């Protein structure tokens, strides 16, 4: 169909979202989009969800950290932010997320708010809770493997 003249095209905003999950979590764009629609539908209802028109544009994820760009209607950025905050897990894998900023174009959004950092995590053995334990380390943080599951810690906890 012929595209709309510029003055009546919808105005969009792009939210830069940073995602964090367990190092063994496997999340893809489709699953994140589903979780986003589900969260928006539950919080905003069908009407609010349709108004916000949330779409995942960019999505990059590896080894527990990722970034996404979420498109929303210009007037609905507050609703979009609220819906994003209500995503607590993707495919039953708990995730943390934060909106780094909002831009008017995808490119500005990437350049201003997303760092595109490489995860480069290493497997190591650290002293925690009176024993040497296997851990997955990145920067100054570590996910330490204990019998009951992963514990998220930082360098300050190693002793």
């Amino acid at each position, binding site marked *: 169909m012929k595209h709309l003249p510029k003055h009546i095209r919808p105005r969009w905003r792009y939210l830069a979202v940073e995602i964090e999950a367990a190092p063994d979590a496997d999340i893809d764009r489709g699953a994140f989009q589903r979780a986003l629609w589900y969260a928006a539908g539950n*919080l905003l209802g069908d009407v609010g969800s349709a108004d916000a028109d949330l779409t995942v544009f960019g999505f990059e994820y590896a080894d527990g950290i990722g970034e996404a760009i979420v498109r929303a209607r210009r007037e609905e950025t507050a*609703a979009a932010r609220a819906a994003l905050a209500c995503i607590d897990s993707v495919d039953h894998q708990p995730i943390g997320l934060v*909106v780094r900023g909002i831009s008017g174009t995808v490119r500005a959004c990437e350049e201003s708010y997303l760092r595109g950092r490489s995860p480069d995590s290493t497997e190591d053995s650290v002293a925690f809770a009176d024993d040497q334990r296997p851990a997955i380390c990145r920067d100054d943080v570590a996910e330490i493997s204990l019998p009951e599951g992963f514990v998220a810690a930082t360098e300050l906890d190693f002793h």
Partner: protein
Amino acid sequence: MYEAVAAYPAGDSTVSRQARTATDYGYDGLVVRTREAEFDVDAISDRYGIDVVRGIEVDAADPESAAGAVGNHRSECSVLLVRGGTDALNRYAVETDRVDVLTRPMAGDGDFNHVLARAAATHSVHVEFDFGPVLRASGGPRVQALQGLRKLRELVEQYDAPFVVSVNADSHRQLRAPRELRAVGEQIGFTADQITAGLEAWGEIAARNRERADDRFIEPGVRRGRYEP
């Protein structure tokens, strides 16, 4: 703005990891609810520039055992919280001056009414708005949590009771930035200012109690002067 979290061993993240995430999200301070958590306040605030406050959340089955725990732990911490969830515990917490915060008043069988709201205002016990189920539950439990929050909000507004806001994070992944909380709050009927005030109240409680624990403090408005021996 402050946030109150549970930490390892009660949660999945250590205090320092929670502090790192909280700094990143723009919080000024962190209240640790877990009594068993081990952490070095100075090391964390040096590294991440965040104020870490020792808190204890008393989780008792009835008011008698809660009263014992409150007496034992009051002097060990800057912020003392009592977990509600039954009518008797809610009533005990809001009528006890030594308690700073009543957490999760509407969880389980707990309920709140005008008597408790008035008592909370009189004894300046902060009532917690627990955003945990709003962010992490779904279906029926979430609807009930939202109903509870609405009832609590109406009472707190009516009787001008002090309140705090928290997401009750067990792990750093459950934390949300203040701006996100304001957005969620506005969707469910709060004003952005209420959410900000609720997050700032944690810091005010911590500052007040630290001042009271100071050696120079005698009573509100009276401090040991320069010339006292």
